[in-house]
Structure formats: C-alpha cells, structure tokens
C-alpha cells in the first residue's frame, strides 16, 4: 500500500534541509537537485490535485522549483524549507488555475495498485455499498470532477489536509490564514463534496 509522504518532515530531515538550503543559497546546484528530489512527490501531488491534470502539474512543478531557486536568496529560514516551497507551489497553482481555460479537461495519473487494499476502498466496494458496481476509473474521474468544483481556496485545504495529511497549523502557515479559517474551509468544502459525491457516500 502506498503510504502518504511524511509531511511535515521530521527533525532530522529538517536539519538536513537547512544544510542543503544553505549550500543552495551559495549557488550549489547539486544541493538544490537533492532538495528537488526530496520534495518532488509531495509538490507534484499538490499541483496535480489542484489542477487534476498531469501535464499541467508537470509544467508547473518545473516552474515552481526554478522560481524557488531564484527566490532562495531571500529565504531567511523563518519557516522550514518545506513550508516555504509549499507556499510557493500553492500560490503558483492558484494563479495558474485562475488563468486556465475553463474547458481544460481532466488528465489523470494512474492509481497505484495499493488502492485496492485500502480499508476505505474495501469498505466502499463491499456488498452493502452502492459503489460496488462502479469501476475504479469511474470513481477516480468522479473524485477529480468533484474536487474541481470547489473554489481554489477550498480545494487547497482539502488537498493539503485530506489527501496529503498536512496538519492544520502547517496549512495555516502555508496559506497565511488562521488555523480556524483552515478548519472552517475544510468543513465547508467537505459539505460541498458530500453533495457532489452523494451517490458514493449516501
């Protein structure tokens, strides 16, 4: 089963990030390559889930890492590199989605095989659930469509919290809003999702 990426990073990873960041600030490109490797999956997942389009996510992630490198001189270390780069990625994704053609369709990554062993999926596809007749790709499409119906701000909190497992406090730092705002956005977003996904969670 695919585990969520450990977000936020633990203390050892954070210390090692600081060292890499310090080297990258001295224009050590190899150190920055390592940071990209370390955060690629997490940032990709954020961008992919914000756009529901893998090509957009691939373009955006390059842009995010290049822009972050250019801005790295101004990174003072007030937050972790992880929070800082996430903030850049969220802002970039929101800007992009605002400008994107509304008719841009979904372009989805394949689901990892581990989904079929996930407890939530097993329960949903059990005999009692009306979901049992739906295929995995139908579900995937429906989830992405529902997510795209949320506003950018609401989608961002759902992606960060419910998909990526980022704690509320960390999300509040990334988005520059209070923890209470994060919680209320999450609550509102889930209610909207509930109506969109009523057939799967009756």
């Amino acid at each position, binding site marked *: 089963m*695919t585990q969520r990426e450990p977000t936020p990073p633990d203390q050892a990873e954070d210390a090692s990030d600081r060292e890499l960041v310090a080297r990258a600030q001295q224009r050590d490109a190899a150190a920055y*390559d390592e940071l990209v*490797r370390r955060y*690629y999956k997490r940032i990709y997942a954020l961008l992919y889930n914000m756009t529901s389009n893998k090509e957009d996510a691939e373009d955006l992630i390059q842009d995010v890492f290049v822009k972050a490198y250019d801005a790295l001189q101004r990174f003072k270390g007030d937050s972790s590199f992880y929070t800082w780069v996430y903030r*850049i990625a969220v802002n970039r994704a929101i800007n992009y989605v605002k400008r994107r053609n509304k008719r841009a369709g979904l372009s989805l*990554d394949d689901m990892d095989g581990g989904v079929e062993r996930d407890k939530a999926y097993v329960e949903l596809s059990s005999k009692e659930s009306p979901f049992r007749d739906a295929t995995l790709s139908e579900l995937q499409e429906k989830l992405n469509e529902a997510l795209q119906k949320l506003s950018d701000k609401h989608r961002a909190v*759902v992606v960060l919290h419910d998909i990526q497992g980022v704690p509320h406090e960390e999300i509040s730092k990334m988005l520059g809003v209070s923890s209470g705002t994060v919680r209320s956005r999450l609550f509102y977003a889930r209610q909207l999702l509930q109506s969109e996904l009523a057939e799967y*969670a009756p």
Partner: protein
Amino acid sequence: MNESELKVYCLEHAGETLPPEAQALLQRDPALQADVARLVAVRNLISLKRYEQPADIAMERCLRAVSQQIRQEPEGWVSRLRTWFTIEHPALAYSTAALALVAVTALVFPRSPATAPLAALDENAPAEVLPEPVLLAVEESDVADIAPTMAAAEAAFPNFDKPIIFLRSESTNLQPSVPRMQIGPGQVVPVNFEY
C-alpha cells in the same frame, strides 16, 4: 458542543474513541449520526486520491529540466521582481496593483480639461513662435526639372515640415479642368490654383 463542532471533531478524530459527550449527542440523534458517517466516508473517498501517482520518468524529466535551468545565467531583475510579486507575495501584488490604479486615477483626473482649474494668463509672456514654412519657388519654364527638387526636399525635410512649392506661371484666363498637375515623368500631384 454544537452540531458543527461535533462534525468537525468526528472528522478530525475519525477512528478514535469519541468523548462521552460526543457519543451521547450522536446516540440521541440518528440523523446527525448518519450525517457524520457520510462526511467521514467522503473524507475517506477523497483521500483515495493519494494513490494517483505520476509515472517514474516524470521525476527524472523534472529534475533534468530544473537542473538545466538553474545552471543557466541568473534571471534579470524584472523577472526576479515578477517572481517576488506573483509567486511569493501574490496578495501584495494585488494590493500594489490596486494602489497603482488609485494613484494613476488621482494623477490623471485632476488634470483633465473638465476638472483642472484654468491657468492664469500671463499677458507679458512671449507668444510661442511657430517655425516659418519653407517656400520653394519654381518658374513655369522649370516645371520639367521640378522632380529632382521635390526628391531633394523629401529627403531633406522631416514629416510635417515639407516645403510649400510655388509655381509661378504667366497669367491666363483658362482654368484647368482637373486640379492636379504632372511634374516630371509619371509623377502627378494635386495643386491649388491661386489667382
């Protein structure tokens, strides 16, 4: 704990043992219990999206592209400023744009003719001297040779400062039917006849 607080609590602590107060609330209200169950199910459904994974080659492609770009020349200050505004501080960018709009509006409107106060006339100020037009006089006998003169004038004078060409001719009582004149081979120009 009200209904909303209970729902939030249940979502944040799904799978954990709920405090007695929350359990009692849920047991008293089956509709609320069902609602909470639906919200948890939706949250679990959405979390299945974490299984959507990029192809392995995608990371290598990204690494290569980023690595190549950051090893190039550093970007210019305009690009850096754009990054600072649009990527790092988008809220500040919108505020700055709004301020700029207000500033431009404040600068432009007081100076518009409708609202600007009339400037006091200084009767002693010297009048603006307009440049004298260049006059070229051509005799009728030289008409055939005017083309080189015009070509030279075209080259020598910038736009809007073209010379005025006078053609002096013997007086006649015959008006030309068409107010234009051929000067040189193939060149026809409109003319005004003054008597």
